[in-house]
Each structure stands twice: as structure tokens, then as C-alpha cells.
């Protein structure tokens, strides 16, 4: 059997189904839509970071020729937000603004220029309020309140969580070495090449259609219904091909709601496209996070306990922030057997654009911290950075101390292979000054185990229709944001039906035409929509085989599909063409439609806060980066990156490698240059020139190694590839800088000024470190103490071999590729905190 198994399509490299259309200009993005009589909308945004609105007079704007409508917050009084528990956004601010860029009014006019003039004609007067611009001020300054709600004790605390698993005191007591380190990870923007854009139309029958560049049409649908106060059945949301998302188009946005409202008022289509500067202010990007890590290890490198504190600069609104807060504490345990673990996290309001999910959602920051700290621990112990990771690596089919279920797990193989490919052992610590290598590992979700709105419905649904010409039409709510979800659907269905992926016709992400998929976030689409597609395709194959069986006089078990035919396995000459089989099946069963759906197994642990972190499967990655550091300029140049990724099984090898290379690229941008930074509430660098991102010239060669572990629940064994491979890149670079020049930059991005400062400090006999000095005093709440899964004292047994850990494989886990737990659930539980 080949490495691809018996598959014709799965695991091989093949042309993505939307590839050709994306090279001809045929792909139609939201801003490419021009409808008859279309108007152009613009939002007026606050230019102050925190202020009360005292006057808002739109009369002059309304009177301008060519202006068809002007709306303010009074027209859209209902609040919204992506998380049900943080409905804190107003489409247009009514009483106060909380960041530069907060929308105040919206206009629709005959063209963009007129819309801009109308915005300028709106009279706004503000009563400025003191602005809170940092984590420290948000904790220390109790005189200013940004939001009307929060977890306390200080007024600008959005979320304050504390969880403790296992016996932390015992863990630290058993340690031979304990380190405490403080790290800072600066925020960054997704910088999608396509600015957000939406076009709305209100038809004579009273229905609203919104075409929009979104990763989450389903949640936009919900938000529109809520704010427009219309039933969902009167709203149609169509996600257009997304020109780059990376998490930045996962929230419902004001411009989408305004476009719809303006279309309803004017009776004409309305388009609103954000400028690049507005994209920086709409944001929802990486949270800046200040982190404190205390980790104890034995002499042999085994971790005995870990205590983590994270401080998230959330910006002015909730967005996904509750989930982000938990994510900064959730996944450290998925790579390492940590016998006792405590996580305290706080998200703070500041007068900056709201932060949200960016590729890796809340996990790249603590992953940077723990991987750099492990590098320091290895240096302290005089042990090899690869060995300390191997000693602590989690095992397949175990549970973590915080009750996360791990199934397939290729972490050890990832480490072995990346170390071997890069020659890490011959080169780490053995190269001339100025050149160095660093290693780091990570894990990520293949889809969040719980939906944002807690309910018992499937997370992904697929419908397949086969017509009498043998045409296969697939509909699914999933939206291709470049990650290749269309190709995943087409590839899986083509594999099962014996066709070519290019022959599969797709209708996606249209709330009128497609069953729900929750969206392109949390690396969920391959796993969840893939499983739904697999189920629907198998049902369709069964119908075709049943009909062909009767016609051919061969039992269905003796039939196979392939190469556009249904044929007898024993005698492949005996068969019918795919269209003929479709005709026979339609004659036998009527219209040929099958459906599939996927609901993850119930995975949340027995505690409040357990809703964030569980996933039906985790991907694992290991990365080695090689850098040269110019001691004269502080410039860090990445020479090469080696990355091994446990993909479970690739559906399409070309696309998986593309996702990994793109993740490496984005990780390098965050490691070395990207920062979303502010001066007095204004973004310092809201342009693509000044906000530095890597170009062709900064991108090093990347050697990608795919590790196949065949996840028992993934479709054909597949897991995610879109986010996980970003995570280890950033700490691998930081560790490589230390290997090259002996300085620790405990702060991302690692810019030349920081490297120079650390080198200077070291030359003067200092420690050679740049990073935060400490964390502010903050009263985290009393921890929720959670018993680890049964057997969790195992790692402390002195006679335990390295491969310890608690067994966690549930009784009902399927073997082989199969759907898990897609059955309806009988009893209903309370929504876990955070979802």
C-alpha cells in the first residue's frame, strides 16, 4: 500500500477546485459586486479614544444632494456581539465612544465621494473622557470606566478567571528547579489583503440579502436578525470568497448591519467597503498579553507543576475575548504532561480597537512563553531542548490534567523528524557567534468542541444532490477563506463517489441555499464539514450501489465505485457508468438527495470554564528555526525553517503544505516585525507600508514534514493545518536568537532595537535580556479547584517510565475513519462558561 493508502484523491497533491477561477479574475469578492441602482455607504467614526457624545446633528448631511439616508445609533438600538454573553456592541454609538474608530453614524449616497462629504457634514461634539491605554492603567486606574459591565474587582476588568488542577503545592515541592519568567506578546493585525466589504439589498417582498466578506455567515445571520429585529427567515447572508481572514472576519461588524439597514431605508442596494485604515481600527486581532510563568522540573527535565498568569489587553469591547482569555490557559497541557497546573487570566478593557481571534486564537502568546521558558529550563539543567520536550510530551489517547481528551498524537515523531531534518543536534550551540538554531513545539484544535451558541444541533451539515446526468451538487454553509474548504468538500465526496474533485459542483455559505456550517474559525472545517460530507457521500454511494446491484445482479458488498463507474469488484468489466447508476437510483428512490452532519462528541470537563479547549482532535507541530543575528544592527534574519506537522492525514497535500508555509510566514511576521500599536489612542502605523509584514525578500525556505497519525475521528483521519503550525514558529525564532548571540528577548516582536539593547546590556556584564520586568499586582479570584482525571498522580510515581499519563480513551471511541457521536443528545446541560 502506498503512503496514501488505497485512496485515489485523499492524501495526494491536486489542484484546488477554486484555483483556476482565482487566477482569471473570475472569483467575485464582495467589493466586486455592482448591483443596479447601488448606493455607497460610509461610516463616520470617532476620532477620540474615549468620549461622551454631546451633540450629533446629521441634518446638514441629510440635506446634501446625492445623499439618500443617514442613520445614527437611535435607528439601531439593539446591541450585539459574537458571544451570547457579551452583547456589548452598538452598531452606531449612542452615548459614548470607546476607541478611535468607534462608529457613530452611517450614510448612503450616490457615490463614495458624496458619502464622504456627508460624513464630514455631520456635526459631532464630544465631551472627552480620560482614556485607558495599557494593561497597567486598566488595572491601576479605578477612576475611569470604559464598559458598563465586567468581572471585577477593578472597573476595567472584563474577565477574571482562575482554575487549579491537581496539587500545585506538591508539584512545586517535588521540583528540583523552579523558574519564574515574565513575557510580553504584542498585538498584531490580521492584515488580510482584502478590506472588509458588504453589499446589502432589500427586495420588494421585504427580504434582506447581505453579501459579505465573512468567515462566519451563520453568526452574521444571527446578529443581523437581532439588530434589525427581523426573523432570521427574512434575512439571507451570502459569504463571498474571503480575500484573507485569519480570524479578522469572524465577528459581525457594524458596516454589515449598516449596509442592511441603509438598504432597507433607501430601497436600493448599498455597498460599504472599509478603507485600509478602517481595517486597522475594526481590528479584532491578536491580544497583547503580559504573561508570568512559574514552572518546576525535576533534574531529568520532567515538569512537576506549572502556574500561569496572563493579562490580556482586550481593547474596548468583548468580541471573542472570554474565549481568548481561557485559551491563554487551555492548551499548554496538550503538549506536555503537567501534573499540576494553575491558570489565572484577566482580560482588561482599554480604549483601543477590540482584540479578538487571530490565527491561533489566544494560544500563540502562552505558547511563546512556555517554549522559551522550557528552553531556559533546558539550559539551566544542561539538557538538550529536544530531550526536555520528549521527556514531557503527551501520549496518544490520554487526558490532560485539565480534562482535555487527546486522541491521535504525533508530537514525539514531529520532534524527532524536525530535529533530524535540521541537524539540530549537530548545530544547536555549535555554530559561530551570530548564527543559531531554536526549537519549539505546539498543539492546536481541530475545531472547538463546543459551539458559540450552546445548543444540540450539528456544527456542520452537508447536502448532496445527484441529478440524472450524473451531476453532483453539494451544498454546505462552509466558506472558503483561502484555506481550501471547497476543495476539502469536493475531494472527500469525489473520493467516496469515484469522481474527480473538479466535477463536484459546490454551493457554499448561503443561508438560503446551504445547510449550516458554523464558520471558518477554530480550524474546524476540514474536521467537521469534512465528516458531514463523508457521511452524506457514503449515504449517496449506498443508494447508487443498491440500484446498480439490482441492475447488475451483484450484491452491493461486491460493488465498488471508481473512475466514474460502479462495477463488480470480482469482475471490473461488469458495471455501469456513474450517470447510468444515478439514473437507476433515481428510478428506484426518487430524487437523489442525501445529507450528512457532524456534532463533536461531548468533551467539556466537569468544571465551569471547561468549554474552551476541548476539540475532537488536536494537531501537533514541531519547528526548528535557524537565524543569523547581526550584532552591529540587531537585525535578525531567518535562514531556514523546518517544520513537522501531525496532520492526521492530508486531504490534499498541496493545500496542507500551503497552510503550513502560510502559518510559518505569519508566525515570522509576528516574531520579528508586526505590531498593532497606539499613540494617544491613534494607531501609530495604520497602513500597509508602515505596518511591517514580511515580503518575498524576508521569507526563508521552509522544509515541511507531514506526520500521518490517522486520527480515528477525523474524516479519512484528517486533522487541522491552518493555525497550529504558526504556534511554534515564534518561540523557535526567539530560542534561535538566544543560541546565536546569547540574549533573551522575552518580548514579541523581536525587533532590532531590542536585540541591540540586550547585546549592549550583556556587553556591560548584565543578563542580556529584554522583556517586561514584572507583572502588576492583581487580585485574581480564588481558584476553582478541579480534580484531575482519575490516575493523575501517575506522573509523580518515581518508578514511572517517561511515557506516563492518565489513560483517557473513552469507551465509545470509534476505530478507523468513522463519524463519532453524531446522534441527537437526550439531556441538555447548562452552557459551559465562555461559550
Amino acid at each position, binding site marked *: 500500500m502506498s503512503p496514501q493508502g488505497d485512496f485515489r484523491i485523499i492524501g495526494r497533491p491536486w*489542484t*484546488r477546485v*477554486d*484555483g*483556476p*477561477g*482565482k*487566477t*482569471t*479574475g*473570475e*472569483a*467575485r*469578492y464582495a*467589493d*466586486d459586486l*455592482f448591483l443596479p441602482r447601488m448606493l455607497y455607504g460610509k461610516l463616520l467614526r470617532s476620532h477620540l479614544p474615549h468620549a461622551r457624545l454631546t451633540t450629533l446633528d446629521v441634518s446638514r448631511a441629510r440635506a446634501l444632494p446625492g445623499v439618500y439616508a443617514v442613520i445614527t445609533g437611535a435607528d439601531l438600538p439593539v446591541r450585539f456581539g459574537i458571544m451570547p454573553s457579551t452583547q456589548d456592541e452598538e452598531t452606531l454609538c449612542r452615548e459614548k465612544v470607546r476607541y478611535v474608530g468607534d462608529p457613530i453614524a452611517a450614510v448612503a449616497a450616490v457615490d463614495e*465621494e458624496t458619502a464622504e462629504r456627508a460624513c464630514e457634514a455631520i456635526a459631532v461634539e464630544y465631551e472627552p473622557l480620560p482614556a485607558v491605554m495599557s494593561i497597567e492603567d486598566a488595572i491601576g486606574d479605578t477612576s475611569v470606566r470604559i464598559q458598563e459591565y465586567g468581572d471585577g474587582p477593578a472597573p476595567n476588568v472584563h474577565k477574571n478567571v482562575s482554575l487549579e488542577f491537581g496539587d500545585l503545592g506538591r508539584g512545586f515541592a517535588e521540583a528540583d528547579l523552579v523558574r519564574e519568567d515574565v513575557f510580553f506578546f504584542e498585538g498584531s493585525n*490580521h*492584515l*488580510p*489583503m*482584502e*478590506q472588509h466589504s458588504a453589499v446589502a439589498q432589500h427586495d420588494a417582498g421585504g427580504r434582506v440579502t447581505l453579501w459579505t466578506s465573512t468567515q462566519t455567515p451563520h453568526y452574521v445571520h444571527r446578529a443581523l436578525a437581532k439588530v434589525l429585529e427581523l426573523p432570521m427567515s427574512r434575512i439571507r447572508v451570502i459569504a463571498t*470568497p*474571503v*480575500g*484573507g*481572514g*485569519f480570524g479578522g472576519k469572524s465577528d459581525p461588524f457594524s458596516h454589515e448591519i449598516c449596509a442592511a439597514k441603509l438598504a432597507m431605508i433607501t430601497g436600493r442596494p448599498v455597498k460599504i467597503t472599509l*478603507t*485600509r485604515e478602517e481595517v486597522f481600527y475594526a481590528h479584532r486581532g491578536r491580544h497583547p498579553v503580559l504573561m508570568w510563568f512559574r514552572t518546576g522540573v525535576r533534574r531529568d527535565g520532567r515538569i512537576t507543576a506549572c502556574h500561569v498568569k496572563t493579562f490580556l489587553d482586550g481593547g474596548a469591547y468583548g468580541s471573542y475575548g472570554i474565549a481568548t482569555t481561557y485559551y491563554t490557559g487551555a492548551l499548554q497541557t496538550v503538549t506536555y504532561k503537567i501534573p499540576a497546573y494553575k491558570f489565572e487570566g484577566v482580560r482588561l478593557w482599554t480604549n483601543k480597537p477590540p482584540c479578538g481571534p487571530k490565527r491561533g486564537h489566544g494560544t500563540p502568546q502562552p505558547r511563546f512563553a512556555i517554549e522559551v521558558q522550557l528552553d531556559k529550563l533546558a539550559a539551566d539543567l544542561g539538557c538538550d531542548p529536544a530531550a526536555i520536550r520528549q521527556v514531557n510530551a503527551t501520549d496518544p489517547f490520554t487526558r490532560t490534567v485539565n480534562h482535555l481528551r487527546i486522541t491521535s498524537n504525533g508530537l514525539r515523531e514531529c520532534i524527532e523528524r524536525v530535529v533530524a531534518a535540521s541537524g539540530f543536534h549537530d548545530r544547536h550551540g555549535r555554530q559561530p557567534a551570530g548564527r543559531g538554531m531554536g526549537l519549539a513545539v505546539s498543539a492546536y484544535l481541530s475545531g472547538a468542541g463546543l459551539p458559540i451558541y450552546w445548543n444540540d444541533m450539528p456544527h456542520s451539515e452537508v447536502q448532496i444532490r445527484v441529478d440524472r446526468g450524473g451531476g453532483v451538487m453539494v451544498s454546505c454553509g462552509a466558506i472558503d*477563506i*483561502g*484555506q*481550501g474548504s471547497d476543495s476539502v468538500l469536493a475531494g472527500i465526496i469525489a473520493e467516496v463517489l469515484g469522481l474527480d474533485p473538479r466535477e463536484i459542483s459546490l454551493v457554499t455559505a448561503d443561508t438560503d441555499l446551504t445547510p449550516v456550517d458554523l464558520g471558518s474559525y477554530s480550524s474546524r472545517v476540514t474536521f467537521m464539514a469534512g465528516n458531514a460530507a463523508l457521511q452524506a457521500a457514503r449515504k449517496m454511494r449506498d443508494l447508487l450501489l443498491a440500484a446498480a446491484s439490482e441492475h447488475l445482479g451483484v450484491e452491493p458488498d461486491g460493488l465498488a465505485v471508481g473512475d466514474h463507474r460502479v462495477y463488480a469488484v470480482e469482475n471490473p468489466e461488469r458495471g455501469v457508468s456513474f450517470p447510468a447508476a444515478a439514473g437507476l437510483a433515481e428510478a428506484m428512490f426518487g430524487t437523489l438527495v442525501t445529507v450528512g452532519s457532524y456534532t463533536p462528541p461531548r468533551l467539556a470537563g466537569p468544571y465551569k470554564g471547561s468549554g474552551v479547549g476541548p476539540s475532537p482532535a488536536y494537531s501537533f507541530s514541531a519547528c526548528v528555526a535557524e537565524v543569523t543575528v547581526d550584532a552591529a544592527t540587531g537585525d535578525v534574519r531567518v535562514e531556514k525553517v523546518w517544520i513537522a506537522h501531525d496532520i492526521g492525514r492530508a486531504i490534499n497535500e*498541496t*493545500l496542507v*503544505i*500551503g497552510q503550513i*508555509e*502560510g*502559518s*510559518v*510566514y*505569519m508566525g515570522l511576521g509576528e516574531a520579528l516585525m508586526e505590531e498593532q500599536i497606539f499613540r494617544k489612542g491613534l494607531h501609530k502605523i495604520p*497602513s*500597509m*507600508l508602515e505596518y511591517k*509584514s514580511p*515580503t*518575498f*525578500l524576508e*521569507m526563508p*525556505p*521552509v522544509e515541511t514534514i507531514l506526520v500521518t497519525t490517522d486520527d480515528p475521528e477525523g474524516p479519512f483521519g484528517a486533522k487541522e493545518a491552518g493555525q497550529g503550525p504558526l504556534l511554534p514558529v515564534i518561540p523557535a525564532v526567539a530560542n534561535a536568537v538566544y543560541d546565536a548571540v546569547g540574549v533573551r528577548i522575552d518580548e514579541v516582536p523581536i525587533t532590532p532595537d531590542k536585540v541591540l539593547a540586550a547585546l549592549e546590556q550583556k556587553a556591560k556584564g548584565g543578563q542580556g535580556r529584554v522583556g517586561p520586568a514584572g507583572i502588576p499586582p492583581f487580585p485574581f479570584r480564588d481558584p476553582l479547584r478541579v480534580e484531575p482525571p482519575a490516575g493523575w498522580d501517575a506522573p509523580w510515581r518515581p518508578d514511572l517510565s517517561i511515557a506516563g499519563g492518565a489513560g483517557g480513551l473513552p469507551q465509545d471511541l470509534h476505530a478507523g475513519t468513522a463519524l463519532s457521536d453524531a446522534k441527537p443528545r437526550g439531556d441538555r446541560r447548562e452552557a459551559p462558561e465562555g461559550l
Partner: protein
Amino acid sequence: MKVALTLRVNGETRDVIAAVHKTLLEVLREDLGLTGTKHGCELGECGTCTVLVAGTPVLSCLTLPVDVQDQEITTVEGLARGGDLHPLQVAFSELGAAQCGYCTPGILLAAKALLDRTPAPAREDVAAHLAGNLCRCTGYLKILEAVDLAAARMRGEEDGE
């Protein structure tokens, strides 16, 4: 104020009356319906809106159409010959060099300008030539491979060997 323009786009002569301040990008997209040309910043920073004017890449967001009236303009819609895709389009599609696809038209045109002059560019020269075009999805590597593959095929080396 509006101005009458005669533009030669993708081999066709097109007459347009457009506001005098409109950029070539806006006229192509809004007046000629050629929405294959995209925009990422409209400030000349990202390369997304690249088109060819007399075979040379220009940023259409910084170009006034009146300045290019007598020259041949090529947009992504003009790359294919009839139903046959340009070798760059085929290679980008095959190798996954287009993910979200939004930067792709600009990069295809910039790459075409290079290959039209330099049939066998070194990898570093391709990177240098395309460095003004940002892409956030691919990490650029598949794009470099696709340009190599297309160049090889255009030289008659079918499999890029």
C-alpha cells in the same frame, strides 16, 4: 468634472467618460467592469492593484487613466488567450499559489512582465521583482515555485525539468 477617455485594455479600445480624479483602478473596476483588478490599500503600498501598461507593471491605484490613454493596458482578464489560460495561471492554480486569491491578479501580472523579459530568472530575481506585492496567505513560496514552473513551461520544458 468628467473627462472623456479612450483606453486600450486587453486588446480592446474602450471609450469612457469618468470623473477626472478617478484612478485607473477605479475606472477599470467601476466603469469598465474589470473587477479582476483588486485593491488592498489604494495608497500604492501593497501591489495588489498591479496592471501592465505597455508591458510594465504599474500600480493602478496611483495611475491616472488620462496618462495611459495611448498605451496597451493588460489586466488579469487579458492574461488568458481565448479559453486557454496563461502558463502562469495554470501553474498558480496547480501549485496552490493562489489561496484566498486576492493578491493573485497583481502578482500574475508582475510575474508576466518579468518572464516576458527574462525567460529564465533566478529565484532571487523573481523574489526581488515581486517584492512590492504583498501576500498574506502563502508565505510566497508556492508563488515562487509557480513562477519557476510557468517559466520552464514557457521555455518549452514541459514539466519544469
